[in-house]
């Protein structure tokens, strides 16, 4: 990514709480139909120690690097590939909004390929998500994630984890896949199914070995049969699982620290620590 001076096209910026989206012209804008749009909050990305000019990186940094690696490998296979991750960085409070230029320059400084920056506030960030056709929203704030999920946007919590892996590791909670009749289906269900199918298509670009992304299924309380059903159900939605763990009540945390997922997709919003 070149670090030339920005030629940002600033969209209309009037009152403080209006939504503004800046395109990052250093990064190729993805084909709107092909890409899988992933939004990450700037709080999740820049939570680390701050330098004078540049923000330190936070929890979401390894995730963004992993997403970039997947894109690189996809483009290696096919330079004309359109099924790529399209990363949008979104601020969800006005305090961060004021730091907009710092956010943009920090992103560049750390070599991150963010295609768009959305500056919004607590009141209207969901509108940003919807306008930008976000297929997955990642935040470190449980309330934000819940709100987005309730509006139909697939959301997941980013938690602090141990040494992150280079490979993008997406963990799915099998108990959710198998028991759709336990209570009302979450509003984000259609979004989850569509995301699964895009992710599955992306995964199929690679073989069983040496894939830059891995799909990990964990069932916590169900029996082996329910795990088998989850595997087949996901397969029918177009998502092939790489690793499967059926715990049947065994403690989750020792296994989680080995699995090192970047995030967990379940019913509603579940954190890794839950």
């Amino acid at each position, binding site marked *: 990514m070149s670090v030339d001076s920005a030629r940002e096209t600033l969209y209309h910026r009037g009152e403080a709480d209006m939504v503004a989206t800046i395109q990052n012209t250093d990064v190729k804008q993805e084909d709107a139909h092909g890409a899988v749009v992933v939004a990450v909050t700037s709080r999740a990305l820049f939570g680390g120690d701050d330098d004078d000019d540049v923000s330190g990186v936070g929890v979401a940094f390894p995730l963004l690097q992993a997403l970039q690696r997947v894109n690189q490998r996809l483009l290696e296979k096919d330079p004309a590939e359109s099924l790529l991750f399209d990363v949008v960085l979104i601020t969800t409070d006005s305090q961060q909004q004021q730091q907009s230029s710092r956010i943009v320059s920090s992103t560049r400084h750390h070599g991150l390929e963010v295609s768009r920056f959305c500056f919004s506030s607590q009141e209207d960030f969901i509108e940003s998500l919807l306008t930008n056709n976000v297929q997955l929203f990642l935040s470190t704030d449980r309330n934000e994630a819940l709100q987005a999920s309730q509006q139909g946007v697939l959301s997941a919590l980013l938690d602090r984890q141990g040494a992150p892996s280079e490979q993008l590791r997406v963990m799915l909670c099998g*108990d959710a896949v198998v028991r759709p009749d336990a209570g009302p289906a979450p509003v984000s269900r259609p979004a989850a199914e569509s995301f699964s199918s895009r992710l599955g298509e992306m995964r199929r670009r690679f073989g069983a070995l040496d894939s830059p992304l891995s799909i990990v299924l964990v069932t916590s309380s169900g029996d082996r049969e329910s795990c*088998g059903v989850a595997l087949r159900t996901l*397969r029918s939605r177009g998502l092939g699982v*790489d690793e499967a763990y059926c*715990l049947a009540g*065994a403690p*989750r945390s020792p296994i989680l620290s080995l699995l090192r997922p970047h995030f967990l997709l379940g019913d509603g919003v579940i954190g890794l620590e839950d």
Partner: protein
Amino acid sequence: MSAMKPNDAAPTEDSGEEKDWAAAKAFFDNLKTNKPRPPKPRYAVTIAVSSRTLFNMVAERKIYEDEGMEKYVAYQVEHENEPLMPGAAFPFVKALMTVNSRLRQLYPDSEELFDIVLMTNNHAQVGVRLINSINHHDLTIERFCMTGGKSPTGYLKAYMTNLYLSKDSEKVTEAIEEGIAAATMFMPETENELSDTQLRVAFDGDAVLFSDESEIIVKQHGLDTFFEHEKEFENKPLAQGPLKCFLEALGKLQRKFYAKNERITCPIRTYLVTARSAASSGARVLKTLRSWGLEIDEALFLAGAPKGPLLQKIKPHIFFDDQMFHIEGAKDLGTISAHVPYGIGQKYHKEKLIEQPAKKE
């Protein structure tokens, strides 16, 4: 070696763990099939078996070796509704299940049971066939890890595994180095008919239950020195070997039967099958076991005679030995054998030092 699991709850045991456990309990209680719920890992004797020891996957393995991973996975998926046939660990697993049903009858609320876990680095797509096969044979295996290529060692520790059985000697060696009892399984051509009411486990002594300290003396200084040494140190207990803790776990379950007056009909029986002779070097072994507070049901001192014929009579569901020479002898006469790659015995074939190839730089 591998420590016994702590029995008292750790002060930092999280409520998340209890929530997961309660949810699983509720799940199993609501099942129409009345399938028994797996025990709490902290209290259970956890046996991890690989897919190739549980099932016969020789043909599939050949496809993997000759045609590669993609073809192998595709083949398994294509045949996923055909159940796999039993493998070397299958009789052992069935015997564990028998012990569990006896334990459940006597102690309906106890979590001190065998917990059988499938630990495979197969890809999860192959897992569908494995689950179908477990269903077909009606095995009580509810927990599994399909690691998609990653080493199982970390997961073995996370599951507090008491014994790991695999066909892959590298994984087994890695597990032993991490302090987990483990062995590489070998299937005989023709199997002896085994008891279906009593689990029988046979152990070699040196470098299996005990350390290889005495075996080092035999290999390096000969039998005479060995006999003298053992007599001199008769009262000094030998150090532990990799399978000592597994014997201990079996003993703990045996005592639950004794407590209910079921000693004669106890469905677990253990055997020591050692090349030592009772007269000269056997005493130290028995005294060591006694000092550990462990019982073994039958101690058989062969004084160097081959183990095969004796094992044929005993008919264990599994026989552990550190020397491939004994493993082969046992296997040739129909005993399911498990090699423990530990100690000085790995460098020798019988009494001869195996030529090590020059190490590549």
